[in-house]
């Protein structure tokens, strides 16, 4: 009978299950230890929050064959250069607002969330905001009161979420910072707003 074979026995598979599970988990821990420093704030892939003082571009990298964020000249957000602590405080306010207003159940961030509204990964660079001169104020005003503004041709609108002026500025800071994260070319084939002087 087949069950007398070693490869069909209960004890063989019990041991295999234990070793495979333990081994996989240890590999995951090791990979996590390698990955976390590479995505900590201020790393190459995930820049420091003060990156919002700079122009952020999204350019095709000939070697990697994907688009990557590139830091450009000084272009402080809302015209005011912030030190690292001030920048972090503003971005943090934005992230807290994004969570407290439940943005992720309509939008995606880094592609994760719901699919009822556009992805926000590169929202800072989106052509919708017109020109880079008016972008910041456009974004703040839109977030504060989106319901009456032009969205699209299909009638889907973002609701008013009671976002304050300060919170809206925080959200814009967060979106600018998020656009500087190296996401391995996601979103693909993105067409950025014109930013040259």
């Amino acid at each position, binding site marked *: 009978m087949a069950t007398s074979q070693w490869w*069909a026995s*209960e004890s063989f*598979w019990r041991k*295999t*299950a234990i070793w*495979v*599970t333990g081994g*996989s*988990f240890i590999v*995951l821990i090791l990979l996590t230890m*390698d*990955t*976390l420093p*590479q*995505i*900590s*704030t201020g790393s190459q*892939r*995930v820049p420091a929050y003060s990156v919002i003082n700079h122009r952020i571009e999204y350019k095709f990298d000939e070697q990697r064959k994907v688009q990557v964020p590139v830091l450009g000249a000084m272009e402080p957000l809302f015209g005011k250069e912030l030190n690292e602590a001030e920048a972090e405080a503003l971005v*943090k306010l934005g992230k*807290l*607002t*994004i*969570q*407290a*207003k*439940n*943005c*992720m*159940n*309509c939008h995606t*961030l*880094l*592609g*994760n*969330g*719901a*699919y*009822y509204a*556009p*992805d926000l990964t*590169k929202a800072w660079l989106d*052509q919708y905001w017109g020109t880079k001169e008016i972008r910041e104020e456009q974004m703040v005003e839109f977030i504060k009161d989106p*319901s009456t503004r032009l969205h*699209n041709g*299909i009638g*889907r*609108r973002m609701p008013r*979420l*009671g976002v*304050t002026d300060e*919170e809206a500025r*925080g959200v814009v800071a967060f979106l600018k910072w998020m656009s500087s*994260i190296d996401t*391995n070319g*996601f*979103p*693909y084939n*993105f*067409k950025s707003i014109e930013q040259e002087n």
Partner: protein
Amino acid sequence: MATLGKLDSANLNGGQKLAVKYFTVALVLLGAQVLFGLFAGMQYLKPDLFYETLDFSVNRMVHINALVVWLLYGFLGSVYWLLEEESEHKVVGLKLGNLIFWVLTAAVTVVVLVYLFVQIGPGKESSLWLINEGREYIEAPRWADIGIVVSVLVVFYNVAATFSKGRYTGIGGVLVLDMLALFGIYLAGMFYTTNISVDQYWWWWVIHLWVEATWEVMVACIMAYGLMRVLGVRRKIVETWLYIEVALMFGSGILGLGHHYFWIGTPEYWFSIGGFFSALEPIPLVAMVVHAVFDAGARHAKNSNHPAMAWLIAHAFGNFFGAGVWGFMHTLPQINLYTHGTQWSASHGHLAFFGAYATIIIAMFYLALQYWRGKTWMAGELPGNGWKWKWSLGLLNLGMVGMTVSMLVSGYVQSQIERAIEGSTWIGYFAAQAHPWFTQGMWWRELFGVMFAVGFVLLVWDLLTIGRGETRAMQPAVAEE
């Protein structure tokens, strides 16, 4: 004494009495999931519906949270259901287990009411503690997280202590270790960080390692128990397969986590790791059932519960297609670049959650009712030829497959227009959403959603009535040796 054909708690053991409470709440939450899903689906078609009253974000949050919680209730109910039979011992600390059931249910009620009537808060940490954490699937505010951890610790104590005092079967051992992992992983989602890459790194530990690892092993345990009950399959066979499944599930699923680390800022080596291991994930999903059914056929086994067996088979196929095939279709990074965060994900999510989890918990509902009504007859020749369970089975499965395929069509259109042609801008996104092919998919999804809802109503009706007044005792599930 068993009373045949009547719903009588004297027919159940201590753990099973608690189990049917969990099952009842699970069924109510499934109803909520269907209702709010229909609202959210309708908003794709009529965006002004409930605008600024019950926005898409609220409906969608209730839809997916009801899903997570009803499945968890289904799992906890299933565990309490099989606990005394497996361990051959009364549940240790059952009173505490009962108390925790009421505490947990009260907490879930408060969370849902806050979702519906408070919805959002100011951009402060207090909002995350009291209202909504704003992270998909684990939106529950932090106070509720702590409550959940305390509750599951009590459940874990019930289960581990009962097996320890009684006997540890293979199912029991796997179950205890799996619950430990399941509950431990939840802690990885309970903190705030501004760095969204780190945030999503740990967030996926909770979501992925639950859904694609520990939950799969949980349902493998339930399946092993269910096959022994319904088909009389020998313990040695199901437990050997259970170990094989654990090895394959954890062997592919733990590192398969990598397929969520393609685009969140994490290094490129996750492409190979995530791609390779998640490609292996479909393998374990169908083997045990195929073997069991083959074995049962070879030994002319009698099936004691036709609806439960039908749902177990639906689980085997649903798990393989929904989680396995639909997941594999877009798991490789070269494809995922175009499909990540589109209706593809929604299509896969629907068929996977339904196929892998909803089906097997519905099977447990039927098994529970059979025993609750005093081990009544539930094989062939039911009144009306069992039309209610057959029609609800058909409508629910067809409705789900219909929704899945509709969303996949919309997903293809979205990948093509938004990603490949337009380049993922806001304009590109709406160009795809406005395309007739996309909106047709959304209409069909809503239509099949209504079909699913009808199936759900029929399911509830059937669960309330099946076996009532039945005079025949259960056909025992024994096989010729």
